């Protein structure tokens, strides 16, 4: 029942290009202290080892560069690798950092406006990012509506909003680039704004979720304990923190 990437392929016998979208965490750096970075990374990973295991990440260097902190990209990748994360892209870096990334075989992501990127780099990053962008714009306003229970093990993806009129079972996963509304019990995982939309919200009438996430900021059920189940609530992002609040 996965409602996922449609193929827009030019049929070819050996290979086929398919457009598909992925939700990838972006690691935003606020410091250039590698020891500190390693430390906080391993703490984060410990919180949800399964979630992070071999997870791909994109490194966002815009914050450190704004503060004009110097960081060596090669060493940074080694540090991130120690936390068992795979760097699959970089954005917001300087020309030198982007060149280092290319040399390491890591694509440069230019979806954020980045004047410094060379045309050559743009081409490189397109191979990963461009199809996804295409699809988003095409299906910008698609809302997916599900009227039947989403069972354990099922995944539903929406390019826009996602409305579920039944329950979401434990072990199920619902993802939307926009908002998520669940009118039954939400027991599985709900990820809104998976393409980075920090304005996305999750609305549900009975929160018992295993995990909730907006634009990559997430909470697992241990963290949401104490939040009231069986009450209509909304979840939104405020200063990079998830806020769980009853709808009055």
């Amino acid at each position, binding site marked *: *029942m996965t409602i996922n990437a449609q193929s827009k392929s030019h049929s070819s016998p050996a290979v086929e290009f398919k457009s598909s979208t992925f939700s990838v965490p972006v690691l935003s750096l606020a410091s250039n202290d590698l020891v500190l970075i390693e430390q906080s990374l391993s703490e984060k990973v410990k919180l949800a080892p399964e979630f992070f295991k071999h997870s791909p990440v994109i490194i966002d260097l815009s914050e450190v560069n704004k503060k004009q902190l110097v960081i060596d990209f090669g060493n940074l990748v080694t540090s991130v690798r120690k936390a068992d994360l795979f760097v699959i892209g970089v954005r917001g870096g300087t020309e030198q950092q982007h060149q280092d990334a290319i040399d390491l075989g890591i694509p440069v992501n230019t979806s954020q406006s980045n004047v410094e990127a060379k045309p050559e780099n743009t081409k490189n990053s397109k191979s990963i990012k461009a199809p996804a962008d295409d699809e988003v714009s095409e299906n910008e306003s698609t809302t997916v509506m599900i009227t*039947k*229970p*989403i*069972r*354990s*093990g*099922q995944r539903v993806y929406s390019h826009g909003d996602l409305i579920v009129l*039944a*329950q979401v*079972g*434990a*072990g*199920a996963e619902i993802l939307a680039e926009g908002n998520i509304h669940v009118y039954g*019990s939400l*027991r599985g995982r709900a990820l809104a704004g998976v393409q980075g939309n920090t304005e996305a919200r999750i609305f549900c009438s009975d929160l018992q979720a295993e995990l909730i996430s907006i634009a990559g900021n997430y909470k697992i059920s241990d963290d949401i304990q104490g939040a009231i189940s069986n009450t209509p609530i909304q979840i939104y992002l405020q200063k990079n923190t998830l806020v769980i609040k009853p709808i009055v």
Partner: protein
Amino acid sequence: MARIIVVTSGKGGVGKTTTSAAISMGLAKKGHKTVVIDFDVGLRNLDLIMGCERRVVYDIINVINGEASLNQALIRDKNCNLLSILPASQTRNKDALTQEGVGKILEELAKDFKYIVCDSPAGIEQGAHLAMYFADDAFVVTNPEVSSVRDSDRMLGLLSSKSRRAERGEEPIKEYLLLSRYSPERVKSGEMLSLDDVQEILSLHLLGVIPESKSVLTSSNSGMPVILDEKSDAGQAYADIVARYLGENKPHRFIDDKSGFFRKLFGGK
């Protein structure tokens, strides 16, 4: 039009084979020509519970491989001549089942029988997949216990996405809940999930509650489907289930402790 019923659960040991034996016997007793197929290749049990293990000559794998005809492999039940059994193979493994082979067998059986009951193996591998792939109705057997409920939920997900009806975009499989090994006393004392707890997670159409009963084990061991034991509570529960499935309106029983009190009072089993 034959109706294909899959008896499934995901989890093992919840009563799939007991249920398959009971409802197929029940349907046949009501006058419908029924066949029950054991999909648990490698661990065949159904013939034991149906009491026909000594009459197994050919099995479903022989039929798929063209080593025997369907009529040679089908075993006529000795209690009810409207009921036939297609046993599983003890010596092969589940990979011997092919979608094409199973499809062909079901097509052929559909010409002759009114109901085809598929006894699914536990798990979600090939055997379980093929047992449910062609189904029209699914009897989801669940125990009032968290892991069983979770596995049933997973199975329901597969029923709605990996079946032939789902792939062809036809009307989805009709799903029914059979809550087995239910003990109102233990629910009361908080040891067991209640019917409401289970329904909160699965929200399915309840076909019936089968109480935990000694008669299930004695019937299985003697090779008589429990539904033939009309005095036992489990036998009555299965009779109700068959009647409800066929559209009769029967109130649900064995959910509350009350019946237990009367049972004790009158010394029934």
